[in-house]
């Protein structure tokens, strides 16, 4: 299946939730240095539930589309559910065959969200290896 399917391109051209929040509870910036994807994710959390997601950044269509889709998904999830989110979940949202070359592009959003949660709880950020191996 074409990686640049219409749903991907739609989200990339008109991303959902791509604004910054006034009072985010958590914020985290992550960069894919090797290919030039830059994402800042914000979460607003009330009573352990994600009420709003904001984000900003520049990057390839895959990273933008994935973040756009994930931002829709996150609203209403509990922090525990965010903690348990696996790479598979993001890939299912994209619903295309991502392939090893673009895996990091697709999962940059997840990596940023995971580390936004960690920042909120005063924890050290997790490594890419931890984000990528989340399915194990």
């Amino acid at each position, binding site marked *: 299946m074409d990686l*640049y399917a219409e749903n991907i391109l739609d989200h*990339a*051209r008109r991303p959902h939730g791509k604004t910054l929040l006034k009072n985010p509870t958590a914020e985290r910036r992550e960069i894919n*240095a090797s*290919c*030039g994807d830059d994402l800042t994710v914000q979460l607003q959390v009330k009573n352990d539930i994600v009420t709003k997601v904001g984000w900003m950044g520049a990057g390839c269509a895959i990273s933008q589309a994935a973040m756009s889709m994930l931002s829709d998904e996150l609203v209403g999830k509990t922090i525990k559910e965010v903690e348990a989110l696996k790479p598979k979940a993001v890939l299912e949202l994209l619903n295309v065959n991502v392939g090893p070359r673009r895996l990091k592009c697709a999962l940059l959003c997840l990596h940023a969200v995971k580390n936004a949660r960690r920042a909120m709880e005063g924890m050290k950020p997790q490594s890419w290896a931890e984000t990528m191996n989340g399915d194990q």
Partner: protein
Amino acid sequence: MLDLPAIRRQFPALNQQVNGNPLVYLDNAATTQKPHVVLDAMTHFYERDNANPHRGMHPLAERATEAFEHARATVTRFIHAPRQEEVIFTKNATESINIVARGLAAKWGKGDAIAISLLEHHSNLVPWLMLREEKGFEIRWIDTDPEGHLDLHSLDEILKDGAVRLIPVTALSNVLGNRPPLEAIIERAHGAGALVLVDAAQSIAHHEMNVTTLGCDFLAFSGHKLFGPTGIGILWGRGNLLNKLPPLLGGGMMMEDVCSDSFVAAEIPTRFEGGTPPVAEVVGLGAAIEWFSKYSWKDIEAHEARLLSLVMQELSGVSGLKMYGPQNITERSGSVIFTVDGVHAHDLAHLLGERGICLRAGNHCAKLLHERLGLLATTRLSVALYNTEEEIRTVAPAIRDICKKLRGS
């Protein structure tokens, strides 16, 4: 004139299809494809001459040693080095640079400095950043303009107080495609008591490097960018300087003498060739240089200049596309980087790849340079002698198509 079809027939990798399209390999700054004589030489070595060089008395060891040292002689001639023992086999240019960096910096501290510019590839930046942490010497940045021209006045200022010990400098930028004025830099450096290390990784397959006339003190390059195999690099240095550098790897062959409580390092070249070297790769590199030397620099440079001129012509016809580096085509060599409005380099490179057009996207191991240019990611096209004008002409139409698809008409 280069016989392109005859040259291309010698490269097995060039003759393949991607999704029904002929391969258009334009990522030569990353690595080059190999002619079958190189592959044959390596296979032949393993099939007939394989032994550990300098370490045996039998016929295979003799042939292996001969093949090994013959390759060293080939490299010596290729870079016009005065003495064969000054040519050291390493793993790649990065290792070559690290040997010089560790070796020289062993004697440096506060009060010493190096002069370097943002043009440099990470392999010629990171070793110095690493050692600065350890040794406390200063890194002084030579100003460059957005086209990559080094500001020689800036360099003069930096050299004034005599604290600069070394200038590591690229012979050809893998990003902007410009060539720093090495003679002028070396003259200034030597006048101020500084040495010069030339990173020839990019230039080695495009322009003749003559270490004798150039006057540099060290030179580094990688075999895989010169139609040779991966896993082999070259460090050339003035004998008297190399013999003063501490060896990087302690092991077999690199000692003059060893006792239970001490050892004496050998002189060059074995000083820096501890352990069994990548013999087949050395043989492959020798074969690559011998193959490459059949073509005149005049023909190669003329052909590549024509290709780059066509690249600039074609790409300037793509709306929203911006190229970086010298405006003046005669100052350009090797690579051209560009951005396209509203289209990320990564998406462009991916979709070009699906059509068989191989470019590179990202910061090309030159993050600082990209930051200086205010860019996050660019797409890079880089040529070699086997590329054709026909190949170049496939790029712009493909980019236009892809932009339409990504932007949505």
